[in-house]
């Protein structure tokens, strides 16, 4: 979905996000900037319909407007200038965020392998798009209904053992996927960047809701991240914190209000909107 957002488009970079609110009653939710056009003053967001806010967002037609969009927030993904070869790993809906990363690396002429994983064939997204921006694309499904059977962790380890010789990996997806991918990377001394999706409100370094523990220190995903060193992140804590409103969300779903705060790391099946 393309949003006309001149103040966001002028400085947007890969890895950054916007905070948007549909109307007066809506939540502020963070969504990653998938692409931008500085001339047309637009940014593109990709999201999965998992809750009330995204359901309503998906129903908008060309020309409709939303109450607020602010950004670009967070820092651009830190890729050092000497980087020659990268592996981008996306899990499920995280692929929507992994795609702009791969696109950016590809534009910079950095050799980019992509590994994306889904539960089953029906959930695969962006296959063609990834194909165009990667040197090697590996698709995994948990049930083997398409591509390789197994998890992205298995595919990554196979690549490393096969002599891929990456400078760095970037993993984006559900928290457990990032956790285990980081463990594989660490086992093989491959530096890995993970993009975190904690619950946020203001997104500008005011409320402290998005705090995560990285290397034993408290960091704020909105101003210090959202990307962090995958070796150092306390993923279990992030999972617990992301469940803070689970009880309310289940209740809210039944009465028809918004379901998931953040709405980007969920495991719920839903239609993707590009």
């Amino acid at each position, binding site marked *: 979905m393309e949003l006309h957002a001149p*103040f966001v488009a002028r*400085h947007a970079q890969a890895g950054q996000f916007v905070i948007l609110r549909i109307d007066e009653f809506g939540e502020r939710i963070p969504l990653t900037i998938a692409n931008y056009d500085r001339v047309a003053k637009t940014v593109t967001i990709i999201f999965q319909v998992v809750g009330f806010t995204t359901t309503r967002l998906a129903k908008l037609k060309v020309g409709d407007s939303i109450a607020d969009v602010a950004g670009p927030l967070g820092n651009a993904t830190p890729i050092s200038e000497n980087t020659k070869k990268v592996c981008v790993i996306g899990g499920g809906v995280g692929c929507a965020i992994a795609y702009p990363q791969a696109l950016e690396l590809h534009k910079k002429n950095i050799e980019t392998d992509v590994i994306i994983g889904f539960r089953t064939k029906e959930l695969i997204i962006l296959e063609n798009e990834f194909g165009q921006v990667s040197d090697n694309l590996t698709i995994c499904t948990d049930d083997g209904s398409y591509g390789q059977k197994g998890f992205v962790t298995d595919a990554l380890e196979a690549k490393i053992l096969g002599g891929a010789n990456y400078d760095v990996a970037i993993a984006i997806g559900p928290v457990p996927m990032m956790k285990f991918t980081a463990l594989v990377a660490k086992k093989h001394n491959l530096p890995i960047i993970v993009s975190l999706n904690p619950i946020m409100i203001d997104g500008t370094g*005011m409320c*402290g809701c998005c705090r995560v523990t990285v290397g034993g220190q408290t960091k*704020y995903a909105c101003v210090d991240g959202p990307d962090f060193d995958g070796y150092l992140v306390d993923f279990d804590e992030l999972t617990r914190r992301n469940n803070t409103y689970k009880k*309310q969300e289940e209740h809210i779903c039944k009465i028809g209000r918004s379901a998931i705060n953040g709405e980007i790391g969920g495991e719920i099946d839903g239609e993707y909107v590009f």
Partner: protein
Amino acid sequence: MANMSFEKVKMPEQDPSTRAGNFKEVSLGYTAEMAVEEAKRCLNCKNKPCIDGCPVNVDIPTFIAEVAEKNFEKAYKIITKTNSLPAVCGRVCPQEVQCEGKCVRGIKNEPVAIGRLERFVADSQLSKVSEKTKTFSIKTNGKKVAVIGAGPSGLTCAGDLAKNGFAVTIFESLQVAGGVLMYGIPEFRLPKAIVQKEIHNLCKLGVTIQTNVIVGKSITIDELFADGYSAVFIGTGAGLPSFMNIKGESLGGVFSANEYLTRINLMKAQKPNYDTPIFESKDVVVVGGGNVAMDAARCALRTGANVKIIYRRSEEEMPARKEEIHHAKEEGIEFLTLNNPTEIIGDNSGFVKAINCVKMELGEPDLSGRRSPIVVQNSEYTLECDTVIMAIGTSPNPLLRNTTNGLEVNKRGCLVVDEYLETTRKNVYAGGDAVTGAATVILAMGAGRKSALRISELIGVG
């Protein structure tokens, strides 16, 4: 004939048991009769110490004299000469340590209720003003100033600059102007409709407010100068909340006061027709003794929870306004002073189930002049709770300093400014919490006013 009563005319309030169940304003304000009666308590003394006690130097005795004569509109004009947000200040200023703290009548008895009178005057004129100022015309000087942040300091700075003929644009990162007046201070203490009316009046002076723009990210300070702005005022306010660095602060059910208050005040999470969720709490512990702690505690109470405030010193050292402490107690909040948390305990699924505390006693005065708390040996105990709200201060917002070259900060992260509030970058001024660390609305307003004056002197002419 002066009113020589020893006590202030009482201001009607919602009954504590009623208001504990709603978010409506606690203090209901004076009637015209009450205001006139209270105004007559002012002796109009020669030295006027109250004016020195006011960070924006409102001409207090003169406006009060007009109230006594029932000239409320004149009184309003006197206040707004130096104070752009009187309805706000009348409600949230710590008058007991400012104007009222200096009042001659307060030496032996209760001081004149300056805050209540200011509030009455502002409220009586608020809706009338917006119509009148439509025709208010100011001679423009052709200069543009950018103000970053639409909180108390930014709004004041913008208002004063506009009055001096500048074209002012305020860039606000959130969806609505007001800053802490909107996201921080609760409705029951400062109704949001009143804040918006005051802001509306400022806009009538010709101030433009651009919401959803994060200076430093959406646009840089260098770009603002390139766009023709002659000066920039930074009023970005409080930033990241402080935590105690004790075990268990990342558990589910532990919130910063900033987050808790933002959910309720800005996002209206407690209302069923708003989407933002609020944690369902039964037993809440709020840590801290400032106004923010009182606000968080009283919000939690209004969601139906039992609330305790834990503070490591005694009540005497609490930085909160006396009125807020009094109101909180009336509403049934329990105060555990001379106590301090040592660890938050979680259940198997990672949610808060209890908090460990120790008892404290007061030792010698520390750098702040307050007696420093010392742990009482072997005084550990456990308190069951499901929610912990940390209200122990903030550090300034890091976003702008991280994205702007040449802006120096001190080791606490506060912007470095000179005596005129100019930062280490030429024509970039700053004030409020971004400079001082967490402080009050009125001090931020004072800084906004001071910067506006300097900008007007240096850039406004020629």
